[in-house]
């Protein structure tokens, strides 16, 4: 899967799951604020990533993810690692 496709897929499921306007998701935007995430929503974010990419985000990994770009980079890294494994 190309990085562009991964990002498209992420944006698609985030807008669907968290019911935000597609236009509000930009690489620089703050993930937590844009998606209005509380502690329970992070659990659903873990679920939706697992169902789309087949790996589980460790809760502690979120501490390094601030922007959508951080999130894209993290998912791309995990997908690449999975494909190499």
């Amino acid at each position: 899967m190309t990085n562009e496709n991964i990002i498209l897929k992420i944006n698609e499921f985030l807008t669907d799951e968290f019911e935000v306007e597609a236009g509000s998701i930009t690489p620089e935007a703050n993930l937590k604020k844009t998606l209005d995430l509380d502690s329970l929503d992070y659990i659903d974010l873990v679920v939706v990533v697992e169902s789309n990419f087949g790996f589980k985000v460790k809760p502690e990994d979120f501490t390094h993810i601030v922007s959508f770009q951080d999130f894209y980079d993290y998912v791309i890294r995990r997908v690449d690692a999975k494909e190499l494994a």
Partner: protein
Amino acid sequence: MFPASCMNRVVITGLGIYSCLGKNLAEVKDSLYAGKSGIVFDPDRKEFGYRSALTGMVDRPNLKGLLDRRARVMLPEQGEYAYMATLEALANAKMDQDYIDSKEVGIIYGNDSSAEAVISGIDLMREKKDNTLVGSGSVFQTMNSTVTMNLATIFKLKGINFTVSAACASGSHAIGLGYHFIKSGLQECIICGGAQEINKFSMGNFDALSAFSVREAEPTKASRPFDRDRDGLIPSGGAATVILESLESALKRGAPILGEVLGYGFSSNGAHISNPTVDGPVRALTMALKDAGIAADQVAYINAHATSTPAGDASEAKAIDQVFGQSRPFVSSTKSMTGHECWMAGASEIVYSMLMMQHGFIAPNINFENPDEDSAKLNIAKTTINKEFEIFLSNSFGFGGTNSSLIVKKWT
């Protein structure tokens, strides 16, 4: 006990209903008057292994646009029904969010299962072998208190907040307890009700008892409480909400007063877990009359618990005859149309009876074609009866021998 001089009068100021007879009060009133059945044959249940695939059926509401994602993720099926019924009841009571925010409005709702949420959650945990992947909503959907925890959050309620689990008398006891909290002055207003899931996971083990009618070729004829040829009940579901309020509070805010809860009687059979008795219901009926301070002949209509099982209907008929044999009020079981709405039934049957009382009719006990020796002693409404009446009683009984009788008077 509180001295009588300190007791509040408890009135009903709002009603809401979401059932197989209709998704609002107007639709349900028309169905009741027409004697319309809400029972269907569900092929999916047959495939699942049900002995009887008959059920009451109602569509799940689309809550997108009404509730945000967070609220929707937390709600199981019966919680969705309860939300719809409560929205209608609050509007009916002319109670808006500003009023709720300014008072300690409570909630006591009947619910005694959340099977689909439990089963789908456990299936997912087994498959994934990682509990996180069940998501954030599961724990809130699976608990018996799911309806009250969700509605208290959605409507930002600040008063009493708990669920009553009392099998098929849950909804009735919820109203009875709400009545006592207000009567004693501990609360001014409580959202009461009952909710029941319909999904195929919720009733399989009840079906295992061979308690359901197998008259699958004639779904609308299958629920026939008190009829000689009845062969079992039919599960059903939805939700019903009844807004209880102290008379003082209702008058102060200019609320529409629809009726007054006069009495609540309860008892436990102290016998078998599923076999009914006559003595238990008789004690609940007698206690309700005493609490209401009325004589048996003042009750014009009894909404019977009768579910269409041979043993249950016979016991209730004997109990009603024992207490009301002299006056012989009209009796009907609306379960002939709705099926058995289980945890919801005690609340929905208050709503059904209130609609009858408001609109001057007694809904029929459909499919009552031939009495047996017990039901022959009752004055059962075979067809719709146009009649103004002022006082009704509603019975609800449940597994474990729990009994509840409520008496309500029209507000004039």
